[in-house]
């Protein structure tokens, strides 16, 4: 044993180790699955499971007692055991799955038994990493696995499944194919000037452009797909003292923001995750918009503007009880600068509304909702509108989406390089530089 492990160190190959981990959430679940991968995995199974036949069938569930590897062979649990043989397994290595009973102490005793048989605890993502290294899946697919596990939303799950199915890889393969074929033409025209006639050089810039647009479209889905990585952000914006904080508190169901009658009280952006009609959203509240605000509040405004950039939906809140002319211009300026869906709210319905329809409807034509944070009138309708609007703008089903930072970054760089190449060609730059 000692000899084997020292030779492993000498060749520097940690992949020869056998890893194990509890694959199910630790807790009071009904079933606990322990996964073991590596050259010793099947040994572990035979040691622990006396119920296994001498030559077990692969991919078949056997009922067995799980016994302690110690002298006493004490029975630890009673469950199912499955074996997979390399390379036909998730990681490409020998794998064993032990399905025991759930429960923290129970799971721990089982994993301890497994570890005592020469396994090492798997680091996060190590099963997938081994699968990638063993050529069982490509990196994009592995990232899909990670996302699948971590997806918080239904649409996120769809995107993860599409990544898992290799759809992003397929789309990118097509783009790579087109680029390669164009590149081959460009290079051929350089290296075989006497033999390459009939190539239509004038079409090259257009072909580059078309690949670039495709690449950027794909990269562009990243923005839309932000929602898949986290709950959608709903930002409450509006003039000072329009009652955003009170509204947020009503929506959140408890007192969160500092509420005061004095304009400009709220100085920190507040974020809170709430469930609106079953949809998880992050509500963001911030400083009111005011040109002559104090310095500290200006800082808040700046941060708010950034928060609005990240917004999936902006709820514009104004004080419906005041003469709209007072704030119209500022509101208009602020809201028209945003390029995300907007929902307008006339708050303070309890104080009476002052001729809204005539003046403010023209702010991007959005519908108006009248609410009162005090009486909670209209709040339920607001919730419904928020949920409806978010679902309306939810990233479409069946589309390939770029959902990981690494992919987005690579696509953006590719798009940039293609753009540069196209520009150079257009300007009559030398071909050898373009390639």
């Amino acid at each position, binding site marked *: 044993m000692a000899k084997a492990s020292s030779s492993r*160190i*000498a*060749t*520097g*190959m*940690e*992949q*020869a180790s056998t890893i194990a981990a509890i694959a199910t959430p630790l807790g009071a679940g009904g079933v606990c699955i322990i996964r073991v991968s590596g050259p010793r995995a099947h040994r572990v199974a035979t040691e622990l499971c006396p119920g296994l036949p001498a030559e077990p069938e692969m991919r078949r569930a056997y009922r067995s007692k799980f016994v302690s590897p110690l002298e006493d062979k004490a029975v630890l649990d009673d469950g199912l055991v499955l074996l997979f043989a390399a390379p036909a397994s998730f990681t490409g290595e020998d794998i064993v799955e032990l399905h025991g009973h759930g429960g923290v102490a129970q799971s721990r005793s089982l994993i301890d038994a497994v570890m005592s048989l020469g396994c090492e605890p798997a680091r996060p993502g190590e099963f997938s990493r*081994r699968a*990638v*290294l*063993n*050529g069982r899946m490509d*990196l994009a697919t592995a990232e899909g696995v990670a996302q699948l596990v971590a997806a918080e939303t239904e649409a996120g799950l769809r995107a993860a499944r599409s990544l898992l199915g290799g759809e992003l890889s397929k789309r990118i393969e097509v783009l790579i194919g087109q680029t390669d074929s164009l590149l081959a033409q460009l*290079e051929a025209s*350089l*290296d*075989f*000037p*006497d*033999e390459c*006639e*009939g190539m239509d050089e004038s079409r090259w810039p257009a072909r580059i452009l078309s690949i670039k647009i495709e690449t950027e479209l794909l990269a562009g889905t990243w923005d839309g797909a932000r929602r898949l990585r986290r709950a959608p952000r709903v930002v409450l914006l509006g003039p000072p003292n329009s009652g955003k904080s009170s509204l947020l508190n009503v929506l959140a169901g408890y007192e969160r923001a500092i509420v005061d009658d004095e304009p400009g009280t709220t100085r920190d952006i507040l974020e809170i995750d709430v469930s609106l009609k079953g949809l998880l959203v992050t509500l963001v509240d911030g400083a009111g918009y005011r040109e002559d605000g104090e310095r500290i509040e200006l800082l808040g405004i700046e941060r708010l503007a950034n928060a609005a950039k990240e917004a999936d939906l902006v709820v514009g809140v104004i004080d419906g009880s005041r003469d709209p002319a007072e704030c119209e211009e500022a509101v208009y300026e602020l809201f028209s600068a945003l390029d995300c869906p907007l929902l307008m709210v006339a708050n303070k319905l309890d104080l009476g509304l002052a001729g809204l329809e005539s003046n403010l409807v023209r702010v991007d034509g959005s519908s108006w909702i009248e609410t009162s944070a005090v009486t909670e009138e209209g709040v339920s309708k607001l919730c419904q509108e928020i949920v409806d609007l978010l679902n309306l703008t939810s990233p479409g089903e069946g589309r390939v989406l770029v959902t990981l930072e690494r992919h987005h970054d690579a696509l953006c760089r590719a798009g940039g390089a293609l753009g540069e190449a196209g520009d*150079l060609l257009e*300007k*009559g*730059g*030398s*071909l*050898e*530089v373009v*390639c």
Partner: protein
Amino acid sequence: MNENGGREEGVFTRSCYDVIVVGGGHAGCEAAHAVARLDLSTLMITLREDRIGWMSCNPAVGGVGKGHLVREIDALGGLMAQVTDWTGIQFRTLNRSRGLAVRGSRAQCDRRLYSSSMRSIIHGIPSIEVLEGLVEDVVMEGDGEERRVVGVRTEEGEEIGCRALVLTTGTFLNGVAHVGHEQIACGREGERPALTLSDSLRGLGLVLGRFKTGTTPRLDGRTIDLKGIEVQPGDEDTRPFSSRTDRASFPRLPQIPCHLTRTNRRTHEVVRKNTRHSVVSRMNESVIPTRYCPSIEEKVRRFPDREGHRVYLEPEGLDTHEVYPAGLSTSLPLDLQLEFLRTIRGLEEVEILRPGYAIEYDYLVPYQLTPTLSIRGLRGLYSAGQINGTSGYEEAAAQGLVAGINAGRWLKGENELVLGREQSYIGVLISDLTTVGTAEPYRMFTSRAEHRLLLREDNADMRLCREGWLAGLVSGEQLERVKDREARVAREVARLERTMGRPGADEPQSRGRVSLATLLRRPECSYEGTLSRDPNPDLRLSGTDADTVEAEIKYAGYISRSRRRLERLRELDNLAIPTDFDYSCVPSLSSEVREKLWKHRPSTVGQASRISGVTPAAVEVLSASVLRLARACG
């Protein structure tokens, strides 16, 4: 001398040479010359003395990528550039409309004069002896890793001793020519093949493959009607290939034009109908044809939609009627060659002087070579040229030069010459051969060089002259001249950077003034184009200096980017893989990758990354393993 060499005691009838070069083609001449320049005794053994430096295929040197090689050969002190300059009857720059990095110089040469000039150089060197003969065997001494070349055995059974041996056998190893249904064992047209040397090499444990190439029929120029065919004259202002050639007396020979005609549908019809008579349809599947120099049969098959292919009518020399129709390599029977030729404009009444043919031959699968072009595990044995799986005179000459230099330096116990990929096309050529191998006869193009913007014809001397001087082939005086040139170019680049251009005639005065260098960086602007804006026109450079200035400024941004990439690559190149590294201990490598690594045994991770089929992921895994191993060993 011992029994293990399979040789009886004391049969050497001649004195022992330092180096024997087998073959007198482009590789053989460069190798013999390089060895002789290192003051070592050399014997060149060739089948026909009158074919030394013979151009077996088209009578032209250079081209895109190949012109680069010729200038590099010159910078290292080789012969090809000078002989081309002396015997050129048309000089042209290809890709003139493209940037400097991909422009290629090309020359039509007088075939006979080229060969006779090369012969007189070889004969003029006292330390080179030339022997007409056929080498049948390589004689080795010692066992295992200690095996070492001690001589060759000729057809007559004579054994000739040597301390190092350079094989430059071209297409002669087991050569078989095909014309129509006829198969003739030959080295090339009218010459005998080397039939037993292949077996001798196999006996040494070497792996041989089989390639095919071809050549065109030779036409009687008197039967070509040039009226109405496009004339293609040379360029007026081309520069010699060699920096040693005197501009004043260049070109030496009268310059004559080529002509350009093309095949048409009728031509293709004749070829298509008769392809079954060609070797293309019959050749053993394991013989791989040259993709980059396809026969007309293959062109017709692969590009069925093309209406026509270009045919360059190249004169073979000043005092011959022979014309070489470039682009019409074929192995059809003679009567069909004539039939398709006569469908081509200008060739309606053409007569063939000698038919075209295809030739297949053995080559040494090049992963057995080291970067010095010695053969792994057989000390003192080097090989260069087509025997290593390449095609083309320039590729052959470049290898011959490197093999000759290295055989000589190895004998003298000095450092051998290994050129980098970022340094030269020769480096690209040899590293491709030794790490990637080749699935078809290897031809050089600019797209093989990842640092192509650095590797230009104009700066070949600046890149390599020092190496040539270190190797002992370039004089100190010449090195000084290159250093002067470097200084001149650097001064001019600096001047253009700081000198504000005068406003152009058509531009308003008010427009912001920019430096001449900034002007030059505009895609549409050339060094020439900055003349009218230059306040000090008398400081300007001309000729190759001007090219280098233009390239250095225009490519500056890309060159620095390229250098940054190079730095990253160097890190991988510095990551040495131990010679006894066990790839089977890296379980995450696919078996395909592992097999390739076992075969090529790269000495660094950088080399491994250039082996085709070795994926970036495999490189990551490999570097991680190598690093871990290095740490474990402390």
